[in-house]
Every structure is written in structure tokens, then in C-alpha cells.
């Protein structure tokens, strides 16, 4: 091809053609590289990329789940919801801020300026216009369809009985999450699963025209059924309210338990607060008022603790422990006992034949301290501490409630006899009221110790029970025989002894009073007492057990005169409400 023009330029044709081909090959190679990359991104990596991208394509408005109800054991509503709505705005999507602000201000009864400020605040992607407002206001807003303004259900928590069982129920935060009490402990059941309304928007949050919002529905929370009986709770609160006022006391508390399975029927802490008007502005006050002291605080139980000492001795006696004192044992009549060189006195002066020649039954009737010193010392630290453990002092009872205290127990290894002797009659030991009530319940119910509980069921609105909390036997404390003997003695205390003021004709109330001096900064606080009574009925097969505590009563301060009458009123109330027949009548 010597006539080829290209050849005339001095190059062979094949050189140029080869170079064209080489360049085309290089370009083909480049094309293959990026097409491979497109293949990888679009067909292999696309799921992950899509997942990441969805987040930026949508703005969400929360759809709050309806919070579960809390009801008492008979289905009485104790915590429910009122339908309310939250109003939100995205300033970047607002088209006519002035008009929008006018409508919002009119519907919500707020100022035009504050609404305008919110609708024009483009620094935030989403603004809460109002967290909760009535349905009627939202309907007014919905009619006008202001661009960039949204609303979503945001129920308000409502407690029909206000302050009733306020420390047990607890309250919720602004976002409806449980803050204290059952609301907090069972929050995971109550809260449900929030949903979302997803709006397709552009980069800055402007809604896309023609794009439909995706609605992810919320799943409502489950309902919680308490073991509490509203009627018993209410009457107990009335009784304790009166006791608080009459004794001008600092606080009045009570627990009512069913000794058969340790389900809590009532828990009263006074003073209380209205759950519908929580004093959120005063954290210290709120903290004090919302505390369930029956579970979270400890006190020195005093004579009510003698039930435990007596139970331990009877059980050991029945087991044939030679160290144990027989129920027929006659205690020395002296008013004092000398232990480790310290002198322990009885509260009574023992004059004129008082507290003379007592057996255990009489020692309980008289609540004679030296007798219980004798009992404790007779049993010895090791045996006695075994019983303290079995009655769960110094341990959690396992109640379904946050913040349970375990009490204070001097360590057995370094325990001095003088302190040990005092534990026998309920001093030098700190327990929670719940611990004492459970210990007493176990002492009178045949020696069975269950985990106390506040909730019996978790159920959905259609009635399906998703979880049933069954009674859980944790352990045995004493034998049925020992329990029966002790209960009989305690019935005597109410019939003949210091618990007389709790006596109800033919309902067989058994119980024990207690009066403890309070300590402040390690010294006895003059004139400050805790008056208490723990009792149950009917003695032959206890169904109701109550622990009543009146903290710092003014004037009379003996458990027998301050607390025992309260127990009587509570038991009478229960008899009325439950329409219980007197013994023999059934």
C-alpha cells in the first residue's frame, strides 16, 4: 500500500492502526472498571446503602403508644389515660408562618408572637409547638391544614383517685415513661411500642408533593393488675389519715397483706401527694412524698419484733433443742438484766406484782423486755441469726418494686452480747416495715415465707393474660405447730394484753404492739417514738395481716393506744367491705 496517504507521512499504516486499537482497548478497560463498580454498588451493596439513605429521606412524627392501665385486683382503674395531642412544626416546611401562627394561637390560646417564633425557627428541624393539648384544639388546627404543622396522639396519664396509693403507683415523666413506683418497675410492659408517621421530605425537610406519609402504627402497652384491693386501700388510707391528724404525727403508714400468699392488699404512706398534680417544681418535697417508705426505709421495730424471737424459741423448743426455753418456763421477775456489764431495763417498773412469774404467753401479753433478752441469750447468736435469715432480715424480700432496702443487721461475727440481747426485743436492729409484716405473716401462716408481690397479672385490652405472677414460696421459717402456738399466744395479746384496743368480738384478732424510741445522730431522741402494731385475723387461719406505724405521735405514744386502734378500724373496715361472717357464722 505504498500509495496510502498516511504512509506518505513516513509512518507505516499498521503503527497508527495499532495505536488506535490500543487506545480503544484502554478505553474499553476503563469502561469495564467503572461498570463493574456500578454493578457492585447497584446490585450488591444496594441494600445497605438504601437502609442508610432512608433515614435522610424521611422526617418522622412520633405516634405514641397508649400506655397500659393499672387496675386493682378487682379491675378498678387506678391509672389510665386521657386522649390528648401533641402539636409539632417543621419551620422549613412552613409556607405561611404568619397565618399559621394566627391559627395556632387561636386554637391553643397562646400568644401569636410565641407561635410565630416557633414556626420561623429554622435552626431546629422539628419544634414542639405544644406537648399536650385537648382534642378540640387539634381538630380546629386540623381543619385548616397548615403546611409544616403536624399533630400526633400524646395521651396524658390520669389517676382517677388522685393521691390513692400514690407511692405504690408512682408517676410518669413528661414523655409518659414511668419515673417511680409500679409505673417504673413495670414500665417495659406498660409503655408499649411507639410508632411513627414518616413524611418524605427533601434535604431541608420540606414535604414532597404527592408523596404519601407512611404510617407505622404504635403497639399499645399492656395493662397491669395489682394485688391491691382498692376498697381496702381506701379504707386503710382513711384510718391512717385520721391517725395522722389525731396524733399530730409526722407520718402514718400501714401495710395490709394476705398472709396466705403475701399479696399486698394495701400500702399506705401518709402524707401523700396527688398523682394528677405532681409537685415537679419541688424535687425535695416530691422525693419525700413519692417515696414508698414501707419498702425503702428502715426503722427500729421495737416490741413487734418479739414475735420473731418467740417464734424462734417455740420452734427450737418443739425441735427438742435443750437450750430453748419451754412455753411453760417461768421467767425471773426482775425488772433488769445485766449483760456484758450493761443493764437492760423493762419499760414497766415491775412494781406491785406487775410482770411477775410470767410464762412466754404472759411475757408477750405484757411485752416484757427482760424475758426476750432471756430468750435470745438462751438460743444463742448462731441459732438466732439462722432465724433472722429465714425471716429475711438483712435481705431483700423480693417484692416487685424498685428501691427495696434490706435493713441493717449487726454482723454476727462481731456482735456483742449486750447488742444481741437487745435484738431479742427489737432494738439494735433496723428493718423495713415490709420485712416486719412479711416476717409476722410467715410466723402466723404456718411458717411459709412467700415473696411479697404487688402485681398479679399482666394483661392486654382484649383480656388476654400474657403473664400471671404466681405466689412464690421462698422458704420455711417455723413449723405449722409452732406457728399455731404462737398465733394463739398473739390472740391472747389482743384479748387480754397490750393489744386490747385491736380486739374485735368473735373475729379472733391476734397481734403485737410496739413502741420504739427513735434515734437521732446515734442518741435517743427525747419524745420521739414510733408506735406500731402488727396483727392478723382470724387467728385460726389468718387471711388479713396489717402492720400499722405511726411515726412521732404527739401526746400518747404507746403502740397499744396509738396503733392498735388503727388496726382495729382497718380490720372492721375489711369485715364490712368483704362481708366477713363472725367466727362460727361463716
Amino acid at each position, binding site marked *: 500500500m505504498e500509495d496510502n496517504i498516511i504512509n506518505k507521512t513516513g509512518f507505516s499504516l499498521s503503527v497508527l492502526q495499532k495505536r488506535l486499537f490500543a487506545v480503544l482497548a484502554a478505553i474499553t478497560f476503563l*469502561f469495564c472498571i467503572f461498570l463493574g463498580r456500578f454493578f457492585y454498588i447497584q446490585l450488591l451493596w444496594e441494600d445497605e446503602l438504601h437502609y442508610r439513605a432512608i433515614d435522610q429521606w424521611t422526617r418522622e412524627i412520633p405516634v405514641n403508644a397508649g400506655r397500659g392501665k393499672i387496675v386493682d385486683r378487682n379491675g378498678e382503674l387506678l391509672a389510665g389515660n386521657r386522649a390528648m395531642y401533641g402539636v409539632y412544626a417543621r419551620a422549613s416546611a412552613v409556607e405561611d408562618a404568619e397565618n399559621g401562627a394566627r391559627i395556632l394561637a387561636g386554637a391553643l390560646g397562646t400568644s401569636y408572637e410565641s407561635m410565630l417564633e416557633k414556626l420561623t425557627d429554622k435552626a431546629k428541624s422539628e419544634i414542639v409547638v405544644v406537648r399536650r393539648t385537648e382534642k378540640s384544639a387539634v381538630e380546629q388546627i386540623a381543619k385548616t391544614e397548615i403546611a409544616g404543622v403536624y399533630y400526633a396522639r400524646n395521651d396524658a396519664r390520669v389517676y382517677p383517685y388522685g393521691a390513692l396509693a400514690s407511692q405504690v403507683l408512682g408517676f410518669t415523666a413528661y414523655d409518659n415513661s414511668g419515673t417511680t413506683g409500679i409505673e417504673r418497675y413495670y414500665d417495659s410492659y406498660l409503655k408499649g411500642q411507639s410508632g411513627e408517621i414518616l413524611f418524605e421530605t427533601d434535604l431541608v425537610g*420540606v414535604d414532597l408533593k404527592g408523596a404519601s406519609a407512611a404510617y407505622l402504627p404504635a403497639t399499645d402497652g399492656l395493662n397491669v393488675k395489682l394485688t391491691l384491693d382498692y376498697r381496702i386501700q381506701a379504707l386503710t388510707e382513711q384510718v391512717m389519715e385520721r391517725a395522722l391528724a389525731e396524733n399530730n404525727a409526722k407520718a402514718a403508714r400501714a401495710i395490709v397483706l394476705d398472709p396466705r400468699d403475701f399479696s399486698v392488699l394495701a400500702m399506705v404512706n401518709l402524707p401523700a401527694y396527688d398523682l394528677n398534680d405532681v409537685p415537679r417544681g419541688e424535687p425535695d418535697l416530691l422525693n419525700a412524698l413519692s417515696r414508698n417508705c414501707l419498702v425503702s426505709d428502715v426503722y427500729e421495730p421495737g416490741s413487734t419484733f418479739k414475735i420473731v424471737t418467740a417464734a424462734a424459741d417455740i420452734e427450737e423448743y418443739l425441735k427438742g433443742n435443750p437450750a430453748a426455753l419451754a412455753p411453760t418456763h417461768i421467767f425471773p421477775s426482775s425488772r433488769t438484766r445485766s449483760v456484758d456489764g450493761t443493764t437492760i431495763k423493762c419499760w414497766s417498773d415491775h412494781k406491785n406484782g406487775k410482770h411477775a412469774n410470767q410464762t412466754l404467753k404472759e411475757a408477750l401479753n405484757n411485752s416484757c423486755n427482760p424475758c426476750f433478752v432471756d430468750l435470745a441469750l438462751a438460743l444463742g447468736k448462731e441459732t438466732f441469726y439462722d432465724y433472722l435469715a429465714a425471716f429475711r432480715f438483712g435481705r431483700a424480700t423480693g417484692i416487685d418494686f424498685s428501691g427495696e432496702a434490706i435493713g441493717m443487721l449487726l454482723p454476727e461475727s462481731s456482735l456483742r452480747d449486750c447488742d444481741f440481747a437487745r435484738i431479742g426485743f427489737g432494738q439494735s436492729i433496723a428493718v423495713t416495715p415490709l420485712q416486719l409484716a412479711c416476717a409476722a405473716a410467715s410466723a402466723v401462716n404456718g411458717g411459709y415465707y412467700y415473696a411479697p408481690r404487688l402485681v398479679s397479672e399482666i394483661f392486654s385490652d382484649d383480656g388476654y393474660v400474657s403473664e400471671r405472677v404466681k405466689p412464690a414460696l421462698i422458704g420455711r421459717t417455723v413449723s405449722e405447730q409452732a406457728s399455731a402456738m404462737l398465733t394463739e399466744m398473739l390472740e391472747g395479746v389482743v384479748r387480754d394484753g397490750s393489744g386490747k384496743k385491736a380486739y374485735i368480738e368473735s373475729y379472733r384478732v391476734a397481734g403485737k404492739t410496739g413502741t420504739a424510741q427513735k434515734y437521732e445522730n446515734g442518741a435517743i431522741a427525747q419524745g420521739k417514738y414510733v408506735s406500731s402494731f402488727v396483727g392478723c385475723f382470724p387467728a385460726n387461719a389468718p387471711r388479713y395481716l396489717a402492720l400499722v406505724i405511726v411515726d412521732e405521735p404527739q401526746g400518747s405514744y404507746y403502740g397499744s393506744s396509738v396503733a392498735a386502734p388503727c388496726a382495729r378500724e382497718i380490720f372492721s373496715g375489711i369485715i364490712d367491705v368483704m362481708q366477713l361472717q363472725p367466727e362460727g357464722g361463716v
Partner: protein
Amino acid sequence: MKRSSAFPAAEGTLKRSSAFPAAEGKAGRGDLLFLIAVVVLAAYGVVCVYSASCYNAEVQYGDSLYFFKKQLVGFAVGLAAMAAIAFLDYRRLQKIGIPALILSLVLLALVFVPGLGKSNYGATRWLGFGAFTVQPSEIAKYGFILFTAGYFAKDPARMRTLTGVLPVLGGGIAICVLIMLEPNMSVTMCVGALMVGMIFLGGVSKKALCAICVPVLFLVPVLIVAEPYRLQRLSAFVDPWASPKAEGYQLIQSLYALGNGKFFGTGLFRSRQKYRFLPFSESDFILSVIAEETGFLGVLLLFALIFFIVYRGFRIANACDNFYGYMLVSGITLVFAVQSALNALVVSGCIPPTGLPLPLVSAGNTSLIVTMAGMGLVYCVSRHNERRKFIGYTN
């Protein structure tokens, strides 16, 4: 002559005869398939520009057709330019090589004259004349092609010596430096690749080629390190999610668009990323929107069309009976191919993000008109080839 023909359709070259001077006679119909492919691609670009820009245009200018109208004007002017050039006798252009280079350099330099240069996104790349803006670097690419083709065609023996190649190197480097100062790294790379490519296509000896290429390869890392923002972009390219709101943003948004497209795409006009998530969605990153709306399948078909244009371009170059036409056509085709490939590499995250339009498709009138004019020139050459071929056969 024995040769394995890489371009079977170019058999006509075998029948060439010097008895018919190239300057005589009338031109034929030319490579109509090439012409159609170019027009289809540019028209498709107009549609894509509308889809990618309508939301931005509505938000920014209150007119969803803003970019579409501009692109349509560019397309019309481009068609006119193509038509006008198609009927030229391209060999006359051989004389304007040097003026074209000088004009390119002057325009590039004018960008730095205060009042004339227009800055955007931290770079001064445009010349403003009232409502019109021109991107001189787009013109300079073709200025360089005209100069190089003319220079070598005048005395092809220049190709044999390094000193003979030097003026081409000098012109190319001068353009590169001016573009680099704007700064615009990707167009610099593009011109650099074009320069090396044209010298290679021109048939320069392998020794001289090595002497040119090695320093260029050495220069790339130096240029990257010289400007800190390039290093940042490089690291963002390695892991864009390390700085999702800064350097990595552009690439992440491009990847989201691609990922959303999957195989079949979301459907034309149904991009999600064009709602202001993806910057430059109608210009340098229009391919992301196309990949999102038409999927991998659409990308495949689009690049099949682009490759077809490149193939036909090289085929026309191969069929050319004179060195000037060969250099002109292969240069124009090469710059189109390189730019398309670079853009796709950027969009798919194979190389760090840079501002480079997808030729014939991206919004931007300078690029569109100049590219269409260039393609018109290729078509013009093909017409002359056919005339030769026709006469050759009848003989």
C-alpha cells in the same frame, strides 16, 4: 499489505488511491449512525437535565424548567453548530491551529481578570458576559486538539523527534497550568490525558513516549500533595462515612443514588436524591440521578451508546485518508471518551470527586455546544472519507 483489521468496516482504506486528491469532489452522506447516536445522547441529556434539576430549579429560581430551558437552548445551538461544521471542508481548519491555541490560552487567562472571571464553589472557572457564562477550559480542550492536529499534519516528521513534539507539550502544559490555577484538577487531568493520548495516537516513538509519560506520572502525586483539599478529598474517597457532612458528603449522596437505583431503577423522573440531597445533580453528578432513575440497566445502555460513539469515532479516524483528519477525529473522540470515563469513575467512587461534566449529557451550555460542534467535525470528516471511498470503489 497484510494486517489484521481491528476495524473490519474500514476495509475501504484498502481501496484508497492517491490518484484522487482529497481536496477534490463532493462529500458523501457520512457516518449517519454516528450522527444519530450523538444527537440521541444529547437529547437524552436534555431530558435527564430536566429530571435531575426540576426540583432544585423550582426551589432556587421558582421555575422548574429553568435548567431544562437553558439546556434546550444549548442543544439547539449545538445542533446548529453541528450542521454548520458538517458542511465545512475540515482541511481548511488546519491553518487555524495556532490561533485556536492562542485564543484558548487568552480565554483561560481572562478568567483571572477581576470582573470577567466568575467564581463558584471556591474555584474561578467561568467567564461572565452579562447573562452568559462561558467555561474556557471546555473550549481549550478543542483548541488544543486543533493546534496539535494542525501542527503534526504540517510536518509529520516532527513526530519522530522529542524536539519536534515539544511545542505540543508546551501548549498542553500551558493549558494545564492555567486550568490548574482555577483550580480544576479533573479538567487538567483530562487535558493531560488528551495530550499524552494524542502524542501516542500520532505515532511518536516509544522512547520519546517514555520520556514524556514518566515525568507526568511523577507529577500526579506532587499535585495532590500540593493542595490540601485534594488530600482531604482523597481520604474522603477512601472512607466517605468518616466525614459524612463534609468531604464525604458528595460521594455518599452519589452512592445513595446508585444504591437506590438497583437494577431497573426507580423510573424516569422518580429520583429521590435529586430533592436537594445530591449536589450538582444536574451537572457533574447527573450520572448519579440517571443511575438512580434507570438503574444499572440504564447505566449499561447509556455507556453502550457512549461506547458506540467512541467506536464509530475511532473507525472514522481509521478510515481517514489524511493525517490531519486522523489526528482531529481521534483527538475529539479521545477527549469525549476520557471525559465520559472520568465522570463515571468519579460518580461511582473509583476516584476522588472532582468537577467534570458528563459530555453531551450534563447541564452546561459551553460543554454541550463545544462537544456537539466537535462531534459535528467528526461527522464532517466521515463525509469526506465516504466520498473518497465511493470514488475508490467505482474506480
